[in-house]
């Protein structure tokens, strides 16, 4: 009786936050879905086709309701396939670089070195740099073909300069985003390495395990779970990369799905089309998540 009472009081107590969260997520989603079925263009001289003027909307239903045409238009746009490919490439390569690089860095940082805490702080630093700032720094100070640091290096070696954003925009974006996410992977993998059981290490030593075998048979299985966490979390954020592409002006060739949605909405002023694109992006992200969980989710079971 008492527990039932406390339970219902508990439900009432959490209700406001649950409702707020629900509205927070459901209202924008519902609006996006609604817009995606409208012929809603900001350049339309007759601003009837929006949610704000339901009366006019009803009068001009024939003109405003778009049916599924926004979706078919978005899905058949050649830019869509390019954007999807860019999205997946970006996620894939950043994951590869941050997980392998993060593992190696973590192995180094796990050693007892002088000034280890300071080095760790330095390694984590990129994670705290805002994406827009990092993009500007990379564009103007690192990868600039004239005054960039990388150009200076290659020129000093007599190799000439690379104009990264003109010739290899996708590679440049991958490098920038990897630089940002490497610390995250390093940090999580490092904590996992530090929790490695000392006695297990000694047991392996008694078994005469050479370093490479130790890494292969002991360390990698031990890291399966943290690496899974890194992959899942990074995938969520990497599918949404936008600032780096926007700020460096690489959207034309390295634009991903979020950038294409931006392009539809704010460059072409097509709210309906952008909404349809947004919904498609959400569905694709869920498909990716589903396959990810199928592939690596079992590592998270106890």
């Amino acid at each position, binding site marked *: 009786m008492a527990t039932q009472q406390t339970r219902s009081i508990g439900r009432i107590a959490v209700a406001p936050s649950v409702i707020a969260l629900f509205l927070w997520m459901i209202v924008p989603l519902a609006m996006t879905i609604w817009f995606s079925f409208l012929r809603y263009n900001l350049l339309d001289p007759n601003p009837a086709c929006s949610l704000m003027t339901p009366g006019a909307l009803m009068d001009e239903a024939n003109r405003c309701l778009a049916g599924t045409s926004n979706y078919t238009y978005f899905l058949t746009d050649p830019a869509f396939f390019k954007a999807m490919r860019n999205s997946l490439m970006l996620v894939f390569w950043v994951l590869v670089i941050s997980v392998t690089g993060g593992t190696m860095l973590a192995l180094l940082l796990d050693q007892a070195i002088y000034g280890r805490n300071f080095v760790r702080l330095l390694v984590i630093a990129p994670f705290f740099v805002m994406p827009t700032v990092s993009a500007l720094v990379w564009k103007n100070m690192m990868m600039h073909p004239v005054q960039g640091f990388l150009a200076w290096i290659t020129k000093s070696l007599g190799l000439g300069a690379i104009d990264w954003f003109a010739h290899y925009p996708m590679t440049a974006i991958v490098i920038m985003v990897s630089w940002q996410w490497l610390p995250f992977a390093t940090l999580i993998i490092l904590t996992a390495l530090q929790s490695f*059981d000392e*006695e*297990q290490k*000694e*047991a*392996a*030593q*008694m*078994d*005469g*395990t*050479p370093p490479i*075998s130790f890494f292969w*048979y*002991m360390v990698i*299985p*031990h890291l*399966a779970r943290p690496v899974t966490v890194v992959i899942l979390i990074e995938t969520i954020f990497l599918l949404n990369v936008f600032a780096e592409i926007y700020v460096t002006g690489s959207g034309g060739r390295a634009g991903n799905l979020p950038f294409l949605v931006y392009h539809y909405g704010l460059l072409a002023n097509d709210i309906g089309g952008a909404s349809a694109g947004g919904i498609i992006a959400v569905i694709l992200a869920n498909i990716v998540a589903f396959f990810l969980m199928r592939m690596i989710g079992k590592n998270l079971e106890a």
Partner: protein
Amino acid sequence: MGTISLRNVRKAFGDAVIIPGADLDIEHGEFVVFVGPSGCGKSTLLRLIAGLEDLTSGLIMIDGEDVSDVPPARRGLAMVFQSYALYPHMSVRNNIAFGLKMAGMPKEEIDAKVTHAAATLNLTDYLDRKPRQLSGGQRQRVAIGRAIVRQPKCFLLDEPLSNLDAALRVNMRVEIMQLHRQLDATMIYVTHDQVEAMTMADRIVVLNKGEIEQVGSPLDIYNKPNSVFVAGFIGSPKMNLITGPLATKFSATTLGIRPEHVELLASAGDVNGSIVLTEHLGSDSFLHVDCGEAGRLTVRAAGDYEGKPGDAVSLGFDRARIHRFDSQGKVLV
């Protein structure tokens, strides 16, 4: 073969000296128990023998060969860890086989050995399980299995039973002793539990603050402790250690007498006192007797002893069984 000799083995971490210098010879097939309170250096000594710690100075010889600089895997020893240290992501089979695999043994030979070890340890049904699916006792057996397949010259066991509950501990104790007889291998066993030491050992090595206090068979150590420390550490309930005028009367600084060597007399014993507390174990009764200046003594009486707290008793000491120690805590002969 499996003889181990320590010659002036010393271990220090910076200024902290853990083992000031230990000498010990262990014969083939012996079951030697290192016993002492926590922090006495018994585990460090074992880890030095295993090669998991580097010697500060001294010499360790296995079968007459100096192994001081030989890596652990090539000393021909196997170790059972306190936490078992099983590889959590490997099946029981792979846990047991891992050391052999690392040694490059052919697969058929590994399989035969694992099967044999599993049969010895009643693990056959669990070979394909993961360690986390096993009970504490089974994990313990896997850890032992991992050690025996390597056919080491000597087994090193570091408090292997301390994570088990009391009933299981008694069972595993018997199993380890049987295994020792069956394998005819040298075993060094570290424990802080003097009951384990007394019941299992061929020879006990009592350590105190890194020093070897006494080496001998369990009964030797029980009957002829050569220091106050050993006298107080071995035996349960503890030996009565009396200082003050009563000890002086026996011309010693400390007088030791075990509870079973104190006799209850009607009057005119060595010391008089009153019962504070009685513990009835059925087979025996232990009386805690307040003897004033001599302190509180423990006395063993018959199981059906009827004395009550508050009763006055007179205690007589068995003259042949008293232990006398000097001011350094060493035994007086």
